[in-house]
Structures are given as C-alpha cells and as structure tokens.
C-alpha cells in the first residue's frame, strides 16, 4: 500500500471516512438534517472525485481495479447513495431513526458496492460484498418499532449468512484448485489444470454462483425477496433492490470481461438459472396484490434478464448488461422513491386497495410511477425497452434462441401486471385517500429518475458510447 494507492482509492476513502465522521458527529449531535446534508455532500464528493481524479495506478493493492469500469460504478453507487439518502430523509426524521447511523451505513454500503464492482481479487470481492451486506442487515431493520422490518432483517441476515458461507467455500475451493485468488490468474491456472482439480475449481465457481444467486435473488434462491422488500422501509428497499444487486452483477460482468470465458462448463447451469428466474419472477408477480412485493418479483425477472446478458459472454452482452444495470437502477429506485414519497403516519401505501384511484389524488407522482412501470415493462421509447432490446439482441447474436423466447414470454407476462397497476392507479375510486405531499428531496429524485428514463430511452447512444469505452 503506497500513497498512489491511497490516491487511487480516494473516492472510497471519502465515502468511508465521511461515513465515519458523520457517525461520530451523530453520536454528539442529533439534528438529522445537517447530518443528512453532510451524507449527501459526502456521496456527491465521492462521485465527483471518482469522476475527476485520475487514478495514478490501474490497480489498488492487487485487490481492486481503479480503471474506467470501476470508476463508472463508483460514480453510480455514490450517486445512488445520495439519492437513497434523499428518499430516506423523511423516513429518518419521522421515525426518529438515528441519523448518524443511518447516513453512515448508507455511505458504507455505497463504499462496499463501489469496491465490489471494482474487485479484481476474490478476497477483495468477499470483503466488499460483506461490507455492504452488513450495512443492509442493519438498515433493513432500522425501524425497531416495526415487526415486519425486524422479520425482514432477520430473514436477510440468516439467508445472507448461508450465502456468505457458500461464497467463502467457493473461494476456498478455487484457491485449492488454482492456487491463486487474483482474478485472471485464478482462471488461467484453473484452465491449465485438468481432471479432478479443475472440477473442484468449477465447483467453487458454482458455489460463488449460488451466493451471487442469493444476493441478486435468482430462482430458486429468490424466496426471501418479496418478504424483505415488503418489510424494509421503501428508501432502504430502493437501495437494496438497486445497489446491492447491481453491484453484484457489475462485479460479475467485470470478472468475466476480465478473465474470459470462465463459465463455459457452467453454461447449462446459468442458462437454467436465468430461464427459471425470469419465469418465476413473472409468474410470481402476477398474483401479487401488494406493490412492494410486486416490485420484488419484478426485480427477480429483471435479474433473470440480466443473467441472460451475462451469459452471452460477448462484449456486446457485457455492454448490454451494463446498460441494463444502469437503467434498472434508475427505474427501480424511482419506483421505490414514489412509494417513499407517499408514506405518511399510516406507513407506506402498499396494497392495491390503497393504490386504487391514487392517480387522481397525486397525478404527478402517479404519472411518474406509470412511466417507471412502463419502463420496467419495456415499453418502447422508455429506457427499459432499449435495455431489454440490447440484452435480447446480444442473446440472439450469441445464439441463445430458447432463452430469448423465454425472456420474451416473461416480458409479455410482465406487461400484464405492470399494466394492471397502471390501470389501478387511474380507476376512479371515491375511497382513495390523500397521502403525504412528499419533500423537495423526494421530488428531486423522482424528477432525476424519470427524466433519465426518458433520455436513455430516446438517446441510448449516449450511455452505450460511454460503456463501450470503459468495459475492461
């Protein structure tokens, strides 16, 4: 570790030390607003430094990359943290959550996600993954007066521990088989091996895949998702649904793009996982009558689609997946931000009965929600369409016709439940009650998300150009 390493790590350091400083400040000073503002500023500073400070070394201590790809995701997750804090502001104040703790945990999580997306070493990967997972364990259950939240936190903790076990075991097996934990190296050595050892190494990758499957909720490891999303407060769910999943996918794409076709022997397995996930998500969402649970299943489907992009293992597939991650993060965050912005003393509007006719009470935010849902559904002219199109196109080029058909089937089914919510919002209903008007912070996040969805839908080339440059 040298000074240039430290300079290369500057965004992460800003996030981590900023978080620590806010944590300490929060212990003495309990006013939530300044702490929140400090957190948002820290997150933005992190993004800024990631964008402006050129890293002097391409790799930090052999654990993390400092290349364009890593920086891209560092910026994305820092901005996500800022947005998460903005959507969570009212939640902290009204539920009297410790502001210092909440803010610092979100920032720690962002640091963890940024590290994960830039991991080049399996131990780095593990540390980063655990960093933000730990933060989420606490964030989910941050409202100690809510039994559902506690249940969600416990479920996430217990299943997450299992997943961590798989991850550690997988890493150990890979090390055992290849004698290396550095990424391209471990794969190269594994390829050079034959017979039993290669099998052990592949088994290790399989274990990692299971851990990843838990984190990004691939079927059949997805069952926790609806319960946790429902129980966790919407601002946290927004982060959990976007950042924690996106960072894992980003790491996966980074690793694969870096180390070449690791998965050739696991292709069948990944194929099966992707197909199962897309269908399970689509079918699961159909029967839901709770928006947060529906969004949970929707995220399951999206993760399945993302896996299709990853499976292609072509540069086009990786580019499509990266684009998809960004679009998914923006859209999903926006959807949860709408829920968060409506929450008031009664809690968050969740059941369809609560949402019915809300479009007449809160036309702007429900309009935004409709836009975001349509983007999630993949309606043309929204970013979601371009993302889905890019992934399916990559799948077509790689010859995964069967998976493509399943993906399209899942998309068609998913239209049904997204449109159902859309219709629900604008059904005339006398009983529809008014919810909170939302804070400036929340409205800002909504404005940013919805305009991003439109801009990326109409001019996808802007982002695609950038992604093609930064892919490792």
């Amino acid at each position: 570790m040298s000074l240039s390493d430290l300079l290369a790590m500057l965004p992460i350091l800003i996030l981590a030390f900023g978080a620590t400083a806010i944590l300490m400040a929060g212990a003495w000073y309990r006013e939530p607003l300044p702490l929140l503002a400090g957190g948002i500023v820290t997150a933005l500073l992190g993004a800024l430094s990631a964008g402006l400070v050129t890293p002097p070394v391409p790799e930090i201590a052999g654990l993390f990359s400092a290349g364009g790809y890593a920086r891209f995701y560092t910026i994305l997750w820092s901005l996500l943290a800022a947005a998460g804090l903005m959507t969570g502001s009212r939640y902290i104040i009204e539920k009297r959550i410790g502001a210092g703790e909440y803010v610092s945990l979100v920032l720690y999580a962002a640091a963890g996600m940024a590290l994960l997306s830039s991991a080049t070493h399996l131990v780095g990967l593990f540390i980063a993954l655990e960093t933000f997972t730990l933060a989420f364990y606490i964030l989910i259950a941050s409202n100690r007066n809510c039994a559902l939240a506690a249940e969600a936190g416990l479920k996430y903790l217990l299943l997450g521990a299992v997943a961590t076990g798989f991850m550690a075991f997988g890493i150990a097996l890979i090390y055992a088989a290849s004698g290396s934990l550095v990424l391209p190296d471990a794969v190269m050595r594994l390829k050079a091996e034959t017979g039993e050892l290669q099998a052990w190494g592949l088994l290790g990758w399989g274990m990692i895949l299971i851990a990843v499957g838990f984190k990004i909720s691939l079927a059949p490891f997805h069952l926790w998702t609806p319960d946790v999303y429902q129980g966790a407060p919407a601002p946290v769910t927004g982060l959990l649904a976007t950042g924690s999943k996106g960072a894992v996918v980003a790491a996966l794409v980074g690793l694969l793009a870096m180390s070449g076709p690791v998965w050739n022997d696991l292709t069948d397995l990944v194929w099966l996982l992707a197909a199962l996930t897309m269908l399970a998500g689509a079918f699961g969402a159909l029967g839901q009558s709770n928006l947060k649970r529906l969004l949970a299943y929707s995220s399951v489907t999206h993760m399945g689609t993302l896996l299709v992009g990853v499976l292609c293992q072509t540069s086009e597939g990786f580019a499509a997946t990266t684009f998809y991650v960004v679009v998914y993060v923006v859209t999903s965050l926006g959807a949860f931000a709408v829920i968060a912005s409506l929450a008031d003393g009664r809690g968050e509007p969740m059941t369809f009965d609560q949402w019915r006719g809300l479009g007449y009470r809160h036309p702007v935010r429900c309009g935004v929600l409709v836009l975001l849902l349509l983007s999630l559904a993949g309606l043309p002219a929204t970013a979601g369409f371009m993302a889905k199109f890019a992934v399916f196109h990559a799948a077509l080029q790689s010859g995964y016709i069967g998976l493509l058909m399943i993906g399209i089937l899942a998309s068609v089914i998913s239209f049904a439940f997204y449109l159902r919510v859309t219709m629900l919002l604008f059904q005339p209903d006398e009983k529809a009650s008014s919810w909170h008007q939302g804070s400036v912070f929340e409205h800002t996040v909504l404005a940013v998300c919805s305009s991003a969805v439109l801009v990326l839908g109409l001019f996808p080339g802007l982002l695609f150009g950038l992604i093609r440059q930064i892919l490792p």
Partner: protein
Amino acid sequence: MLDSYLPILTLIIIAVGFSFGAAILSRLVGEKKPSTVKLAPYECGMPPVGSARERFSIKFYIIAMLFIVFDIEVVFMYPWAVMFKSLGLFGFIEMGVFILILLVGYAYVWKKGALEWE
C-alpha cells in the same frame, strides 16, 4: 496429495467412533436409577437456583460483543509485531491508523453509552 490427509481422516473416524461408542456403551451397560439430584443440570457442583431459562440483560450481550470485537482486533497486532522491523515506518503509521480507527469506534461506543451499566 489427498493421501497425506489419510491420518487425519483416520483420527476423525476414531474420535467420532470412540465418543459415540462410549456413549452408546454406557447407555447399554450402565445401570439407571434416576433421582431428582441426578437429573438436575450440572453446574460446577453447586445446587441449581431458579430456572435456567432466565432473561439476561441486553447489556451482557453488548459488553460481550464489544469485548470480542476489540479482543480480536488486538490479535492483528501480533503478526504486525513479528514483522515490525521489516515493515518500518510505513507499517508503524498503518498500525497507528488502525489503532485510531479502533479508538474512534471506542469513542463512539462510549458516547452512545454502551459501556454504562445503569
């Protein structure tokens, strides 16, 4: 390579077999005359007082957790101490930063009142 683990495997099998064997054997052979004293939980030879299912104060857990955290972190200092000379000034500063972070955590815990018993 795996052959070299054979003694360990043998040991494991013998150990497991011995412990289960002893337990089963005593069960089969031993005479059973249960009484209140015999059935009572063993607690350092003292007669048990009250129920074992008692609620403990959360403070025990907090203190225990804090102890483990700080205790384990100190363990990192042993390898550092061994390599102190070769690491030089940079290693010293790094450990200083490490201790500082621990101190910050300690200060936080203190300020939050986790160390106060009342």
